[in-house]
């Protein structure tokens, strides 16, 4: 029993010109059996920071709830939203607190920082932060995603082109993985709007 492959997941985030896109698949399975095709993996922390969690579904949900709680507390104390870099450090600290009994998820964090500069990073299940300038991936389809993103990514893409690129990378990668897919969920975030789209994918 491979615990990171129990539920199946695919998550990717990409940087564009003053915008970012974050995408995930929608399958929730129990090993080979598909249970749901509308599982929410991407969550909004506030209008400019999104987190997507891959890995064990129960930890995805619990960790999300704890992070929202911590962010709300921050908002009450500081009277402002968290910067994406700060939020990433918070996630890293929360994950390392459970160093010897970890949350079995790998987060991907994406946000717009000061001056609308996009920020993305990923982490392993015990909080090792990995910053990137172009794209980050996570989940059972991560190897395929690395290949697809590397081939399709260009720097400084506008929002529409970024959406196309991230969608194609996600759909082609999950089609090579049994445990993820069954549709796609993409958020494209610019300083002025958040566009949420559902992708029609192969349902097998």
């Amino acid at each position, binding site marked *: 029993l491979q615990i990171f492959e129990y539920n199946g997941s695919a998550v990717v985030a990409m940087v564009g010109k003053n915008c970012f896109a974050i995408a995930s698949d929608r399958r929730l399975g129990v*090993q080979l059996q598909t249970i749901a095709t509308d599982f929410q993996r991407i969550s909004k922390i506030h209008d400019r920071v999104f987190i997507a969690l891959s890995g064990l579904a129960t930890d995805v949900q619990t960790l999300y709830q704890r992070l929202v709680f911590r962010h709300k507390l921050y908002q009450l104390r500081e009277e402002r939203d968290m910067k994406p870099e700060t939020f990433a450090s918070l996630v890293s600290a929360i994950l390392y607190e459970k160093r010897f009994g970890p949350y079995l998820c790998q987060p991907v964090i994406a946000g717009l920082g000061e001056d609308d500069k996009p920020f993305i990073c990923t982490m392993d299940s015990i909080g090792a932060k990995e910053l990137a300038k172009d794209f980050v991936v996570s989940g059972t389809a991560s190897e395929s995603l690395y290949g697809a993103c590397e081939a399709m990514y260009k720097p400084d893409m506008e929002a529409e082109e970024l959406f196309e690129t991230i969608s194609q990378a996600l759909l082609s990668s999950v089609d090579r993985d049994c445990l993820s897919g069954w549709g796609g969920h993409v958020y494209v975030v610019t300083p002025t709007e958040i566009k949420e789209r559902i992708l029609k994918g192969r349902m097998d």
Partner: protein
Amino acid sequence: MFLIGFLYLASQSVKKIIEINPYMLGTMAGGAADCQFWHRNLGIKCRLHELANKRRISVSGASKLLANMLYSYRGMGLSVGTMIAGWDETGPGLYYVDNEGGRLKGDRFSVGSGSPYAYGVLDSGYKFDMSVEEASELARRSIYHATFRDGASGGVASVYHVGPNGWTKLSGDDVGELHYHYYPVPPAIAEQVMEEAAAE
């Protein structure tokens, strides 16, 4: 049709219905190499039987040849879950044969990791005296539902018909497209409103 090496998808277009001879088909589930090899081996044995006895082998005989061969390799790790379908003097024949040497005659079977899901659809729609169109649509739907729920099934749903003059391929539909054919995505509310406004 999925072919998986652990959890990586090697191919979406594997032929899982093996043509043993013009009037007999075998299905593939379990190990691909095992199924391909042993079905071809069965085809050879059937042809030798025809040459030795001047008549075609019965489906019962062919399935028994395969079952006995697999029984002799029992415990050695072969992985074969197959159905032998054919037509002989006694009419249509369908046998289930597996790597343990099990052999069962029946009217309907489903084999493989997605088989429980296919059985659900198959059993609820099956009648002995269905027409060919009804049966092929039932088979297609059963395979489609198995590919939807089972992670290890997918790709193309092929349907063959076995009649007195041999087998014919009826259809080979990509299950990704079958999904939207059976469950079309309804147009979004905004689109519907715009259509109504245009109609006025």
